[in-house]
């Protein structure tokens, strides 16, 4: 296997785009991502759903530029200002909450921004705590603050709510929705939760065996109306996932 460095363009400025052309990735010869071409509209919130092993994380890692050494082709263009929100909070245990929130941020007013970002996620007063002293939900909120403090043009989130309990997850949905509304970045949210995708995203992609098999605009106002349109969308998405909704 060659240590591939993929064609990867990072654009800056307000019109920075997300553009994928024929992106494929292989692990030991097995195709995990097949010829994905994709464009994001400015400020678009895109949810990516698909069965386990369908290639969602592989696509996200390609967009994040974290897949050097993986075999593959295709060109990717993403904003240089982007941040990744992982499923685990990935806080550094030897840094305080505030130091974690501003990790890697090289700005003179990083401290002030960090405090503001922590306040945004409801963690004022915990700046000097150690991550180990925080609950799982609080740790994930620090991770959210860390990914938003640099005001990214693209937020890449890989099942960021997967490890949280149902109640905390609903709170996180509201928080993310509000904060995304303030900053207005493009978002790629990988999730296995169809309802989460419908609730948050402007557009839902369904992936199967490394290909995007369904690409749907949600086209409904927030909060989602409680009528047949959501049910119809959910049924379509579940059908694309190969699940028959029996209930």
């Amino acid at each position: 296997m060659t240590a591939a460095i993929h064609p990867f363009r990072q654009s800056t400025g307000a019109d920075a785009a997300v553009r994928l052309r024929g992106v494929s990735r292989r692990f030991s010869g097995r195709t995990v991502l097949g010829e994905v071409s994709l464009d994001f509209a400015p400020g678009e919130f895109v949810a990516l759903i698909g069965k386990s092993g369908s290639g969602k994380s592989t696509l996200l890692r390609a967009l994040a530029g974290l897949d050097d050494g993986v075999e593959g082709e295709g060109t990717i263009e993403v904003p240089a200002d982007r941040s990744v929100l992982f499923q685990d909070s990935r806080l550094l245990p030897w840094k305080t909450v505030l130091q974690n929130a501003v990790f890697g941020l090289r700005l003179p007013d990083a401290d002030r921004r960090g405090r503001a970002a922590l306040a945004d996620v409801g963690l004022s007063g915990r700046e000097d705590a150690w991550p180990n002293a925080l609950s799982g939900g609080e740790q994930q909120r620090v991770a959210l603050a860390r990914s938003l403090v640099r005001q990214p043009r693209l937020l890449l989130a890989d099942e960021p709510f997967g490890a949280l309990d149902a109640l905390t997850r609903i709170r996180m949905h509201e928080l993310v929705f509000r904060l995304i509304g303030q900053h207005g970045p493009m978002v790629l949210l990988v999730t296995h939760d169809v309802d989460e995708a419908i609730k948050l995203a402007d557009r839902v992609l369904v992936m199967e065996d490394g290909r995007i098999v369904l690409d749907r605009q949600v086209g409904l106002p927030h909060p989602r109306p409680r009528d047949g349109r959501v049910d119809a969308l959910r049924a379509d998405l579940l059908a694309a996932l190969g699940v028959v909704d029996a209930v």
Partner: protein
Amino acid sequence: MTLFDHALDAQALIGSRAREAPARAAARPPRLAPGKLPPGAILFGPLALVAIWELASAVGWLSPRFLAAPSTAIVTGYELLVGGTLADHFLASAFRAYLGLGIGVALGLALALAAGLSRIGEASIDGLVQIKRAIPTLALIPLAILWLGIGEAMKIALIATSVLVPVYINTHAALRGIDIRHVELARSVGLSRADFLREVALPGALPGFFTGLRLAVTTCWTALVVLEQINTSEGIGYLMNRARDYGQTDIIVVGLAIYAILGLASDFAVRSWERRTLSYRKALAS
């Protein structure tokens, strides 16, 4: 009541106990792990030993030619201290131990960083240290004497080389075992290599370094004790050797006590330094 009846009664009793037992167990789960000791309780064993030892000496079971009583050793230690020689011997031993320890820790750390952070370093250093690890320090004494003589330089050099190994092994392993998820995070926020080393790799390896340091302190005392048997005119080991020639078991006990105190104090110092530096871990337990 016949004997037979008694037997029956007893059986019934056993039966009813057996039936009762699970009910009681359910009401209060048995304590599986021993409870926590109150502070200072760990001293019970050592103090009891000293008491028995003193008693055995007092009633004459232990002859002073075999082993001096603790009280005799305390008096002797006090006299030596007041007489001025003990402090000099103590300082000579402590100087040897800590200079060797300091040099060895610095070398071990430097080698671990070189091997853990660069491929050239890994290729050139790791194999050598692994070979050094396989050779006991005592086996190096003949060569060290030929090269450095029988003076202080040889002793400090040997303490340093024996201390270097545990520091190197543990620090190097911690640097190599760095959490790949932290590497990914650092890449995703665009950290430079220098910043990555400073903010992620080194703090992440610190627990390994402390493990190595604690082993190093133990190693350092072991090496010191052995080396002080060789041609010394100063130091706790010299004091004990001379006492052996005159059959002064009280001085030997004083020497042993000083080794114990130095070892315990060093371990305590490293532990509290570790606790302060790695205080972020405390939250885990609470």
